[in-house]
């Protein structure tokens, strides 16, 4: 066995490969990260369009939606199902977990690539195939899956129950492939962070982003298994005429709900933690202060991860579960807000007496904390059976999880995107367009979803295509709120034009970025922008933790992790 000289830092290596190997079937973690990210953003446009259809239909039921046409009740179900599915599985996970994780983990821990680069490429291409299958399911006879993103049986196990046959099978297939892709990616993340850290980097020298990505990957890996088993049973119910979920034949439809939420609730943290990680990187850089309570945040994350496995039944309080389950699951649900609260307080304490600069990444990071707090606090109402029985399946819940997911997915991703854009593409973004994007997103997000809290308390059920069907929702007040939410949604979508314009403008005409434009400490800023294939000329020797800002007695207010003292 010969040990060749590491040739990766030879910059010509990247150019020596063909177009296909460099840009399409690449094993370079940075290229794969961009592939995931742009696939996710493209799918966000699809998901956003579906949101537009939903909002237009609810504001003026029955009137054809411009650009889509009339929305019948069955079609409305498919649109809602696919909006949820796409936004969670094809937007949140690829951009936050796979996109940011792939780009940042090797760079932040000082590795040349992921532990298994070819597995990484395979993971993206399986994800790509799953994306194609999902999009194809819109156009098959019978239309796309219409059983909700939770795809409960009996809606999903017999075609006669939801009116959709092939669409549901394709949905299950697409989600299964997507899970396989993220399992491969997750194993790669975990092993890379455990085993391929640069010399000198201990576990507690890792940036919080790496901790959070790894924690999210571990949570995903352990929670998804039973659902995969459950999905196999569902598929057999559909194709092989078994009766796993059919009570008439001894099966149990509640079982699927349990399996789904055993995965589904940890999935919330799979999405949230990478967002927290990005915020934790950005706050100290723009406040020029060490992050407050680094170890406390790590421990809180671990506790959150463990607790996330024992809260799932709070999604099923009204599903007919054993009433004795309600109290323990309610207690654990309230309990999980403690470690999350600790993390948020640590973030706020990081700002205390910092010298804060409100540039675009920082604005989005602060916006994330502000909006997420409201989402988290309204979660308490859903976690207690007494109030949940009243608000369950109303727009209050819809508003709650959008207040939790939009900050953790979009705000945190945009913060990360503006922050690491110079590293990814070697150019600076336009600050003015970035600020416009932030204020548009922040204001219209609140306009849209705050009115949904009020609609939910008025009794607007979350899965009806025509609110006028109900007496209580036929009032002028309700109609006004529906329109406010719709106008907010249109504004929210319009604000994203600023992002697209910024992206195009910065990629073509942006100012060239130097290595470390934000004067940050972590290892990714010590290499060129964009980093070459193989990342580091020689592996860095890590000497300290990632957040040494404004150390007394130094001329510079930052101290990179690998700089000699």
């Amino acid at each position, binding site marked *: 066995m010969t*040990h060749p000289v*590491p040739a990766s830092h030879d910059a010509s290596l990247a150019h020596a490969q063909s177009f296909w190997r460099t840009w399409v079937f690449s094993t370079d973690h940075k290229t794969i990260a961009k592939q995931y990210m742009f696939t996710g953003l493209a799918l966000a446009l699809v998901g956003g369009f579906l949101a537009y259809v939903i909002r237009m239909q609810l504001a003026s039921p029955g009137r054809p939606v411009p650009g889509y046409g009339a929305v019948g009740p069955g079609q409305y179900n498919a649109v809602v199902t696919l909006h949820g599915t796409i936004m969670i599985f094809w937007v949140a996970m690829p951009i936050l977990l796979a996109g940011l994780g792939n780009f940042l983990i090797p760079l932040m821990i000082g590795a040349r690539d992921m532990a*298994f680069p070819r597995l990484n490429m395979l993971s993206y291409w399986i994800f790509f195939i799953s994306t194609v299958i999902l999009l194809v399911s819109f156009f098959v006879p019978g239309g796309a899956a219409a059983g909700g993103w939770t795809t409960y049986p009996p809606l999903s196990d017999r075609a006669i129950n939801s009116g959709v046959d092939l669409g549901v099978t394709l949905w299950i297939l697409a989600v299964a492939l997507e899970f396989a892709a993220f399992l491969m990616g997750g194993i790669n993340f975990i092993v890379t962070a*455990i085993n391929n850290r640069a010399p000198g980097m201990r576990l507690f020298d890792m940036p919080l982003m790496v901790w959070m990505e790894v924690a999210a990957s571990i949570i995903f890996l352990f929670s*998804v298994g*039973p659902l995969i088993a459950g999905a196999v049973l569902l598929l057999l119910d559909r194709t*092989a005429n078994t009766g796993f979920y059919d009570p008439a034949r001894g099966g149990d439809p509640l079982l699927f709900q349990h399996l789904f939420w055993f995965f589904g609730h940890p999935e919330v943290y799979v999405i949230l933690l990478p967002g927290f990680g990005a915020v934790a990187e950005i706050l100290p850089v723009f406040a020029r202060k060490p992050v407050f309570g680094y170890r406390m945040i790590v421990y809180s994350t671990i506790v959150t991860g463990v607790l996330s496995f024992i809260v799932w039944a709070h999604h099923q309080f009204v599903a007919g579960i054993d009433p004795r389950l309600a109290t323990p699951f309610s207690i654990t649900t309230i309990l999980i807000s403690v470690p999350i609260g600790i993390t948020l307080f640590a973030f706020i304490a990081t700002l205390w007496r910092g010298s804060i600069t409100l540039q675009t990444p920082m604005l989005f990071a602060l916006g994330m904390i502000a909006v997420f707090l409201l989402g988290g606090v309204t979660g308490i109402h859903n976690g207690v059976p007494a109030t949940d029985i009243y608000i369950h399946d109303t727009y209050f819940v819809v508003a709650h999880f959008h207040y939790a997911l939009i900050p953790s997915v979009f705000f945190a991703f945009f913060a990360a995107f503006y922050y690491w854009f110079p590293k990814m593409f070697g150019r600076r973004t336009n600050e003015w367009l970035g600020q416009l994007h932030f204020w548009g997103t922040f204001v219209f997000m609140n306009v849209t979803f705050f009115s949904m809290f009020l609609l939910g308390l008025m009794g607007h059920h979350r899965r009806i295509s025509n609110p006028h069907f109900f007496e209580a929702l036929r009032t002028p007040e309700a109609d006004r709120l529906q329109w406010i939410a719709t106008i907010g949604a249109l504004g929210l979508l319009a604000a994203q034009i600023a992002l697209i314009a910024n992206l195009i403008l910065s990629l073509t005409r942006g100012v060239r970025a130097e290595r470390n434009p934000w004067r940050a400490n972590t290892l990714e800023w010590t290499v060129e922008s964009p980093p070459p294939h193989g990342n580091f000329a020689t592996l860095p020797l890590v000497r300290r933790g990632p957040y040494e800002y404004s150390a007394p007695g130094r001329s510079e207010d930052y101290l990179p992790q690998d700089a000699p003292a």
Partner: protein
Amino acid sequence: MQYARAAHIEHESTEVPTGRLGMWWFLASEIVIFGGLITIYVLFRWRHPEWGAESSHTINAAGGFNTLVLLTSSLTVVLAHKAVSEGKLGEAARLLGFTLLGGAVFLCVKVFEYTHEIREGFLPARSLFWSFYYTMTGLHALHVLGGMVAIACVLVAVRRGKIPHRVEYVGIYWHFVDVVWIFLFPLLYLTS
């Protein structure tokens, strides 16, 4: 290919080789998939004591023989790992061949069992017990097949003197398939 492996990993932070660590995390994901299925089955079995009568129609002798076959193939694959660590690649290849043979015998016996049961009218849709029986043994058989493909690939490579460390990794996977069967056998056959 070996070039790429050696080039991008220069430093390992723990004493466990990166490939073996990856295999363990992969097995962790398999534990929750198979374990999830077994958990669901155990709960249903608890709820339906009458499944004991159905379970008595499985062939204990065939299941027992298959357990023996898998245990023996586990022995040969771990001996192959030992042979590799002693530098005896030829012996390792021969032992891997025995493991492949064991996998093939296991699948043949399984096919014989399925044929027999289907002839007797025990189809997957007959009752929930048989649905579980075919799902669990079928998924396990797919893992046996997958393991055989992996072992065959490693066998070819070892014959050419390449990447012998992978003998250990496929071995760990093969033992996992064995462990799953150790639980499936009493769950589906013996508790009648």
